[in-house]
């Protein structure tokens, strides 16, 4: 912990060439998967409806404002990782928390009310990260793109996240069999659960057939328009919160 990891990158003539080659590669990769999938067939939409429950109940139509104490708590709980794009290092921000939190709170509240996220909040740094140590460092395929958001935007994201979580929890909208991003759940609980079920079956003299699915660049092929309609129709996120989530406005501008 704390020791700096050695950055592994392909050998290249200039950083600019390298950045361009990665940029082309990652964009092209997603384009190829998208072409593979083909145009989404809307006539199939009805077929899917049986699996997607329409949201009924009180919708999340207003984020509600944040408070200085909420902002302070989020910042103090955060680790000191900072991004090169952030104007000040996280440790310094923490030291000046009393002076800065009123300003940040005001900025965040304006964003939540107006469903607008300033450009500076959206700029991310994309960094290619080698998938496993020991892979050929000169092959672009062996890297995954990881984006690094400015610290302040992460704080704002957490403010939003808390509100969405509260909404999802109060309507029990989470999939119970999903271990990711959930309190008291981890890759370990996921493993224990499945392993336990298999062992129990074996004890009962039963067999288990297990299928492990592999998705291509799962996080990258999501269609934003579809995601927005899912959020609205199946999870009851609407109005300003939905607008805030609108990718066209809030998707980070990628800086390679």
């Amino acid at each position, binding site marked *: 912990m704390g020791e700096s990891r050695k950055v592994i990158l392909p050998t290249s003539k200039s950083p600019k060439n390298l950045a361009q080659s990665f940029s082309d590669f990652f964009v092209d990769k997603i384009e190829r998967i998208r072409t593979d999938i083909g145009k989404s067939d809307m006539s*199939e939409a009805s077929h899917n409806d049986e699996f997607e429950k329409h949201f009924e109940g009180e919708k999340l139509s207003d984020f509600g404002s944040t408070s200085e104490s909420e902002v302070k708590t989020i910042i103090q709980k955060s680790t000191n990782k900072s991004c090169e794009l952030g104007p000040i290092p996280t440790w310094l921000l923490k030291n000046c928390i009393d002076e800065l939190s009123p300003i940040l709170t005001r900025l965040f509240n304006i964003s939540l009310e107006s469903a607008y996220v300033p450009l500076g909040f959206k700029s991310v740094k994309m960094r290619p990260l080698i998938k496993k140590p020991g892979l050929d460092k000169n092959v672009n395929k062996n890297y995954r793109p990881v984006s690094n*958001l400015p610290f302040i935007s992460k704080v704002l994201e957490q403010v939003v996240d808390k509100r969405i979580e509260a909404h999802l929890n109060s309507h029990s909208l989470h999939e119970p069999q999903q271990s*990711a991003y959930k309190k008291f759940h981890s890759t370990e609980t996921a493993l224990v659960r499945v392993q336990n*079920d298999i062992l129990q079956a074996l004890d009962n*003299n039963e067999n*288990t057939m297990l*299928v492990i699915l592999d998705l*291509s660049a799962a996080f990258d092929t999501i269609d934003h328009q579809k995601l927005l309609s899912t959020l609205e129709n199946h999870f009851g996120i609407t109005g300003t919160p939905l607008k805030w989530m609108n990718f066209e406005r809030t998707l980070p501008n990628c800086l390679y």
Partner: protein
Amino acid sequence: MTYSVPQGSVLWPKNYILYTKPVGAICKKHGLSFHFYADASQLYMTFKPKILNSRHKTLQNIESCLIDIVQWMKTNLLKLNADKTEVILFMPKRNNNVIDDIRITVGDSSNQTHIIC
């Protein structure tokens, strides 16, 4: 850019699991147990080997579930890597009586099942 979810973000990966929640519903419909960790998905089904044809029926159940999942993913712009999808059969050592070749069809590829006793 009109798609993609930045991974360094707090919020967007969570959107992914909301987006793919119907996959769970598909599994339930076919009577499969399942567990997800973000995009890592494990589906499984337990059966009593003594009952005639139970293995065959389980296989059919899983296959028809996968057909629905592949179709759902297609309409929702996600791609299943059919040839990287793995199937494992777990059984107690004592009843590993002659097991013939079990193959499962995922999308357009036919995958060999690994057998672990």
